């Protein structure tokens, strides 16, 4: 984990709506300049969590510290000043339908009391940045979803925020548009150095742009860490389930041929599920150690996440009870986590 300076620090925050606990003892730190993702199913408390960061949602316990100031200690006026330095984009864009694209992007500057001339220059720059200069005079109703979100992003960045909150910004968009919006966010992060905190229910969003991730369920953080660590070694069943969409399971033909009991003269399928080049190297070295095993690779999905290889590789080795016991014992000594999937004929 990088030792940068935290721009957001949540200290065991809690929030309940009546008897429903939305957030329970949530603590996390977001480092300056990173893209931090919070993933969870709907109803996990993600929306409540992200809204505590700009004070849209009150907390019952704990502290929210943004850029050094404790939000709960601020009065309305001071909170508004902090909010002007935090951009936010929304799932349903939340653009003002009676204002043009230009006026929507201009709004934060108008609210902050900037003079008209300065506003205009800034708005044109922002529209260029999101590629919508030619839509300046158009009303949002005439835009596509992706264009609306670009306006939303331009508006969120108008106040030159150091922090951008993204509330399911791509959930209402088709996969292709989602990708282009994620690319834009990544590009803006690089160009403006803005820190991004996003919530999503899609693992693919996390994989695409996040540096670190926290998995939220029933108002609690189940695990958090760099994306490649969490992807490579999911510690909870929920994370594994959320990951399933990103890492397809074994091909169906292979699953059909699989037996639960060893087959005489058959082969055993072993899966390694993990991340990190060393991890794979050690597994390969081990499996190649004994030619008698006749190691083969039957299925592999390895992708690079955050510069690290992450994925699953399924090997088959010639089955004999002794050989498998021997192999698994050696794997355990080297902390290589093989999972025995089953047995196939041949």
């Amino acid at each position: 984990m990088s030792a940068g300076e935290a721009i957001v620090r949540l200290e065991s925050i809690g929030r309940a709506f009546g008897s429903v606990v939305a957030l329970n003892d949530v603590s996390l730190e977001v480092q300056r300049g990173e893209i931090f993702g919070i993933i969870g199913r709907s109803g996990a408390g993600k929306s409540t969590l992200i809204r505590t960061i700009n004070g849209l949602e009150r907390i019952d316990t704990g502290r929210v510290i943004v850029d050094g100031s404790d939000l709960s200690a601020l009065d309305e006026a001071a909170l508004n000043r902090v909010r002007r330095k935090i951009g936010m984009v929304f799932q349903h864009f939340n653009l003002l339908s009676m204002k043009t694209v230009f006026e929507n992007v201009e709004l934060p500057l108008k609210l902050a009391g900037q003079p008209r001339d300065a506003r205009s220059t800034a708005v044109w720059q922002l529209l260029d940045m999101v590629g919508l200069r030619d839509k300046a005079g158009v009303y949002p109703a005439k835009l596509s979803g992706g264009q609306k979100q670009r306006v939303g992003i331009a508006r969120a960045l108008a106040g030159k925020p150091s922090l951008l909150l993204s509330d399911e910004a791509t959930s209402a968009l088709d996969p292709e548009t989602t990708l282009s919006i994620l690319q834009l966010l990544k590009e803006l992060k690089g160009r403006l150095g803005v820190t991004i905190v996003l919530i999503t229910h899609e693992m693919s969003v996390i994989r695409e742009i996040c540096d670190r991730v926290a998995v939220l369920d029933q108002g609690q953080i189940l695990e958090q860490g760099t994306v490649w660590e969490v992807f490579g070694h999911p510690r909870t069943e929920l994370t594994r389930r959320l990951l399933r969409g990103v890492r397809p399971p074994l091909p169906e033909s292979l699953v059909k041929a699989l037996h639960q009991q060893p087959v005489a003269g058959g082969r055993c399928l072993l899966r390694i599920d993990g991340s990190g080049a060393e991890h794979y190297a050690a597994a390969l070295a081990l499996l190649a150690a004994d030619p008698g095993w006749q190691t083969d690779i039957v299925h592999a999905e390895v992708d690079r996440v955050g510069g690290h290889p992450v994925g699953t590789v399924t090997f088959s080795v010639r089955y004999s009870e002794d050989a498998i016991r021997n192999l698994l014992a050696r794997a355990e000594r080297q902390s290589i986590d093989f999972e025995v999937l089953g047995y196939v004929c041949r």
Partner: protein
Amino acid sequence: MSADDIQLFAVALGETGIMAGISGVLSLVLGLPLGVLLVITNDDGVWRRPILNRLLGTIINAFRSTPFIILLVALIPFTRLIVGTTIGTTAAIVPLAIAATPYYARVAEMSLREVDRGLLEALRALGATRWQIIREALLPEALPGLVSGFTVTLVTLIGASAMAGAVGAGGLGDLAIRYGYERFETNIMVGVIVVLIVIVSGVQIGGDLLARRLNRRL
């Protein structure tokens, strides 16, 4: 129809116009802030004030449930206090405005409540003050609805102004009663109805047109 009749119509039309027009403007000026207040003080509003909200609601309901003809009479002392007279067109404007204000407040409230809550949240996230939220999001977003609602209020006022004859305010309704009904001049009665239909249709069509022109969601 004689020249005298035309003269009668012109005067009555002017009186109706003045009564509906001025009380209409007054109901807009007074009713819109009340409508805003009703919405923002509500439980999910940007300025939660439950007691004020309930108090306002009760007062508005009290005025709305009183039939206009009774309000007209009951308000006579108040009318004298405000305009110094209790008869004539000027005197009718006071009860008309007082009846139309709570009416428009409710109509405006409905339009304002339709505004997407996500927009208000977006404004809050941008660090907007309450007043800025009202001015930049609540009012502009509800504008087409507010215009439609005002059209309905004007039409209602044109109808209600017919009753103002009871305090000698004149107007088209009064003309129809005195000439058309009491003196059996059917052509006057029919004429009044035709003129009223034309005016009301004109106001409605004009209002609809304006509301549609203002609506950027189409």
